[in-house]
């Protein structure tokens, strides 16, 4: 009988205006986010963006210079790590090399002085959960990277923490194993209703695993949202550039109409785009369009943006073909599905790209990392 693991459902975690400065260096600035109970929340950013510092503050290895952290309504910002009761999986797993797998998993319970007869079943349950049931007596040195990862996971979960932190947990694994562990971690998180804070620099990992992703750059929170939001409705150039690929067209606003703006770019090319900001006529803006949103259909009913150029590069990649085209000082990339009927366009051939207003995201041109 599959006993239902008794890990509690997790608690809400509130990060309020978190700041961390080292002397004059600002590592994290005004980080505010609420992670709902049971939510898979990923902090994504390039290295040096402040994501690890943020996580260290949540874990208690670093105290915020300003701001508060509340777990289930109680402030924990000033507590040492051992008093917070948050589970944590380190980048290098930090599985204790002198203890067996079982003793590693027992560790959090032993230091909590739980009676031995209660420890046994809990540890068995956890080892089964991470599919290491028969590995209890092995030493960590005998395990593969993926297995050590599971030990670290079991050890971080066995004391039923209200929140689980994972710091780049899959960075050291090869691609196949990483994909397998992504699915596994997501399954555990759903099954146990864990509140998860997951730190990574891998955008694909962030998009496939998370309920919501917080993107950081230069110590600031740049945008928070569901993977779909972030990819399809980025709030600024950094997000559009960091997640996936984008074509960027700079220009000047010539007309506005609610959420849509009309933009004139170089060589009199005009197009319309959607925005979450408000612009006045004459404002410098930049528009981002995903290459896969461009089509070669000349007459697509919804695609009111039309641009003509000549093919300058063709890359056939099986399922799709990537075209690069140039015209009127602009250079755009389009990724199109391969269909027999269309065939490949040769280099130098005239080509027309069309795309919709909604899939053209317009931001202020000067802004780099401003909050949405």
């Amino acid at each position, binding site marked *: 009988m599959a006993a239902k693991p008794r890990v509690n459902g997790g608690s809400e975690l509130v990060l309020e205006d978190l700041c961390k400065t080292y002397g004059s260096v600002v590592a994290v600035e005004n980080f505010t986010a609420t992670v709902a109970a049971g939510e898979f929340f990923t902090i994504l950013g390039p290295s040096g963006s402040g994501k690890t510092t943020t996580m260290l503050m949540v874990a208690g290895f670093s105290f915020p210079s300003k701001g508060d952290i509340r777990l289930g309504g109680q402030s924990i910002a000033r507590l040492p*790590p051992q008093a917070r009761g948050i589970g944590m999986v380190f980048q290098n797993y930090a599985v204790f090399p002198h203890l067996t797998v079982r003793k590693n998993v027992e560790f959090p319970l032993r230091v909590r002085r739980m009676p031995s007869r209660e420890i046994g079943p809990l540890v068995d349950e956890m080892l089964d959960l991470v599919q290491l049931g028969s590995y209890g007596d092995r030493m960590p040195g005998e395990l593969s990277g993926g297995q050590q990862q599971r030990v670290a996971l079991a050890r971080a979960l066995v004391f039923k923490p209200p929140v689980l932190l994972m710091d780049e947990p899959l960075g050291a694994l090869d691609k196949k194993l990483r994909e397998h562990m992504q699915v596994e971690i997501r399954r555990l998180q759903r099954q146990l209703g864990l509140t998860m804070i997951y730190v990574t620099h891998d955008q694909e990992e962030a998009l496939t695993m998370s309920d919501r992703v917080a993107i950081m750059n230069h110590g600031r929170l740049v945008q928070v949202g569901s993977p779909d939001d972030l990819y399809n409705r980025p709030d600024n150039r950094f997000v559009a550039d960091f997640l996936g690929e984008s074509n960027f067209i700079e220009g000047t606003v010539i007309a506005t109409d609610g959420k849509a703006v009309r933009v004139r770019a170089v060589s009199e090319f005009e197009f319309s785009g959607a925005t979450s900001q408000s612009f006045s006529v004459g404002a410098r803006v930049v528009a981002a369009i995903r290459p896969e949103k461009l089509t070669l259909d000349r007459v697509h009913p919804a695609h009111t943006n039309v641009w003509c150029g000549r093919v300058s590069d063709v890359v056939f990649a099986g399922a799709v073909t990537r075209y690069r085209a140039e015209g009127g000082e602009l250079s755009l990339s389009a990724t199109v599905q391969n269909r027999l009927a269309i065939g490949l366009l040769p280099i130098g051939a005239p080509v027309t790209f069309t795309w919709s207003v909604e899939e053209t995201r317009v931001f202020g041109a000067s802004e780099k990392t401003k909050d949405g």
Partner: protein
Amino acid sequence: MGRERPATDDARRRIHLLMLAPAVLLLCVFFVIPLLGMIRRSFVDGNVFANYASIFSSDVYLHVFLLTFRISAIVTAISLLLGYPVAYLLAHAKAGIARVVLIFVVLPYFTSVMVRTFAWIVLIGREGIINQQLAIYGLRLPFDLLYNEAGVLIGMTYILVPFMILTLYASMRGIDPTFTRAAYGLGASPAAAFLRVFLPLSLPGVAAGSLLVFILALGFFITPALMGGPADITLAMLIEREVEITMNWSFAAALATTLLIVTLIAFAVYARVARLGRLLEPLS
């Protein structure tokens, strides 16, 4: 002109051997050959093992052996107790501070053992600085610190503690700090994190440092000779006595060979432990 470059493996190996040759030659002539000569001298014509037989049949010599072991063991234990906290602090201190402390640990080595031993005699003798200071307040230590076993222990520990500190420090530096961090993160108090994680991980270093100090202590001569009492005769002193006073070189050779064998056994254990230490290093 040879067309072949001398960088082939064979040529390189020959060059390496050639570079080693002076050192090997020096060791052979001044160390290995005399050592073999000494071992040969320890065997007597007629009853070959007569010297060894009398070493192991006499209470006097066994007593000296046991005393030497006992002093070495106590010195090792005291060095460990004194050295462990220093090494721990060194391994966790900021780089700048660690460097300064390390210099102070190593500094005494720029002075000869003889000078440092005499310095202790001035310090802890019956009319030494410590007793003089105490006398100002009308106090006097109820026991002597010099010319007895206490003197030997103080002197030897003082000289050997840096070996312990440096060995422990090197091994503690190899312990990944995320292990301690992980222990905190999993709910361990600082004491529990130390006892359950850091201390066990530092045990290979403890074993290596202890064996090193023990091996060095086994052969100590100057310090016990100068700071010990008439009853505190270590093996090295006994050998010296046989050479200088009794002039029984053959017997001295037998004693020295016995000490050598004991030391080699301890060293074999040390080598094993030092390798074990490498196995416990953080997994890459």
